[in-house]
């Protein structure tokens, strides 16, 4: 059950998408999201969709893995569809009791749901194909200018890196503690809300204790290796842009330009 959580997971691979510079991938994700929100009408959506499909195809990530990421957000998606379907004014298609479905409502619901699903799929593709380390490296370099206004960029990205790194560990740990308490007859699945909340105590207490212990150990280990923040820190793996990054940026600019043009001429 918990093993299904794929947030921040990385599927190692050696495809073009995996090898792209993390900075390129981060910028392209932003470009992609921007294009997705500017897009209006079937043609623009088609273009953005084509872009996503190409990226997924090149990355060799299974489509089922992307859909798995959508599962936890199913409620939000359904709610969006529901609200758009019933609360959009326009030409009435069907009407029963207090509900009316309009032509615009159907179109809105369809595009909104597509937009959310594509948004999630696109961002998941980023973490699926980029290791946490290179993701934070890329982010730190991109945010570098903000150091001028005294923003602790290195520290922030390091925190993000550690958080990403420990998601699978925490999930594994939670699984283990749950199993151990189940073996002692703990019941997480029945009872009213209060009983269920109470049933979480045997999981949360050990989990907090071990997390604090782990944080302490990690701090000691970092200290032992003379970690003292980002000042004067060098990298073992320097990031370099390659030709493929240029091509990708080119595609990104074209995509954005196309979507904006289509919007201006409202096609």
């Amino acid at each position, binding site marked *: 059950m918990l*093993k299904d959580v794929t947030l921040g997971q990385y*599927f190692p691979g050696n495809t073009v998408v995996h090898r792209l510079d993390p900075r390129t991938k981060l910028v392209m994700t932003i470009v992609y999201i921007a294009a997705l929100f500017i897009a209006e009408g079937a043609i623009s959506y088609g273009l953005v969709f084509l872009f996503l499909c190409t990226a997924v195809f090149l990355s060799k990530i*299974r489509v*089922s*893995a992307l859909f798995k990421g959508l599962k936890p957000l199913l409620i939000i998606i359904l709610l969006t569809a529901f609200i758009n379907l019933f609360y959009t004014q326009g030409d009435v298609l069907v009407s029963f009791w207090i509900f009316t479905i309009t032509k615009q409502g159907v179109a809105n619901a369809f595009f909104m749901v597509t937009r959310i699903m594509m948004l999630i799929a696109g961002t998941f593709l980023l973490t699926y194909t980029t290791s946490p380390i290179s993701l934070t490296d890329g982010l730190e370099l991109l945010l570098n200018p903000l150091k001028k206004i005294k923003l602790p960029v290195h520290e922030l990205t390091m925190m993000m890196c550690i958080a990403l790194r420990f998601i699978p560990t925490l999930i594994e740990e939670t699984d*283990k*503690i749950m*199993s*151990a*308490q*189940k*073996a*002692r*007859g*703990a*019941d997480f699945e029945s009872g009213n809300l209060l009983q269920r909340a109470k049933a979480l*105590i*045997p999981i949360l*207490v*050990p989990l907090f*204790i*071990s997390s604090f212990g782990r944080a302490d150990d990690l701090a000691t280990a970092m200290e032992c290796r003379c970690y003292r923040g980002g000042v004067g820190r060098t990298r073992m793996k320097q990031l370099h842009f390659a030709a493929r990054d240029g091509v990708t940026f080119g595609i990104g600019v074209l995509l954005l330009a196309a979507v904006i043009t289509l919007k201006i001429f409202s096609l």
Partner: protein
Amino acid sequence: MAPIIETRRLSHVYGIGTPFEHCAIDQVNFQVERGEFLGVIGHTGSGKSTLIQHLNGLLKPTSGQVLIDGQDLYQSKEFLRKTRFRVGLVFQYPEYQLFEETVYKDIAFGPKNMGLDEKEIDRRVHEAAGFVGIAEDALNKSPFELSGGQKRRVAIAGVIAMEPEVLILDEPTAGLDPRGSQEILANIRDFQQANGAAIVMVSHSMEEVARNADRIVVINDGHIAMNGAPRDVFSRAEELLAMGLDVPQITRLFLRLRELGMPVDASVYTVEQARDQLLSRKGGGAEC
């Protein structure tokens, strides 16, 4: 009489449909007899932890069956829940599951879930604490004040207090010093004798398994590679070594002696057996 636990062609596959798909155990037929002390050995990733988590229904088989007392574990939710109390499972590093304010309350967690009355819970907590050597005055302390070894005892007591018919322990002595390990193993044997329970102990340490088990099951690569009395298993020392497993030090010594041309029987696995064999070779001679 049917074995207390039996698995039939039990398989488990992790991460079906992801790039990490992995078959942990494959068509395993495995039995636990009443009252026996069974040692399970196998190196990391051999599937032994996966196997034991099937025995009380924590993991659901991908295919195959688990029978408790001849009855299918998954026949009803009720039966599954009852089995959790009949087959007690102590995980590796169980001290990380402690959560209550006092040692007493933590040991009482299992019995309380069984729906027993206060008096019975009280009896079981004291008895379980006695088995693992937790002093009466420690019962009112917070479990987090105790030392690592003491915490482990409390965690084991928490499972013993359910008075299971089968007690499964995953590496119960991992990370303990030799004295602590021996004491815990003695506690487990005491419980076995007093309650007539079957013990299944998963371990890395060949010495521990050799000294305690009536029967040994060796798991390699998701399959049962060997199954028999310690003498039979350790007489196949070369195969064990080839699987990347260890054999007791004394067995290794005798293997080396045989290599050097001494006509000794390398199926010994305790120092006492070795001594007896050497003495009898001297013609039943005097003590050295």
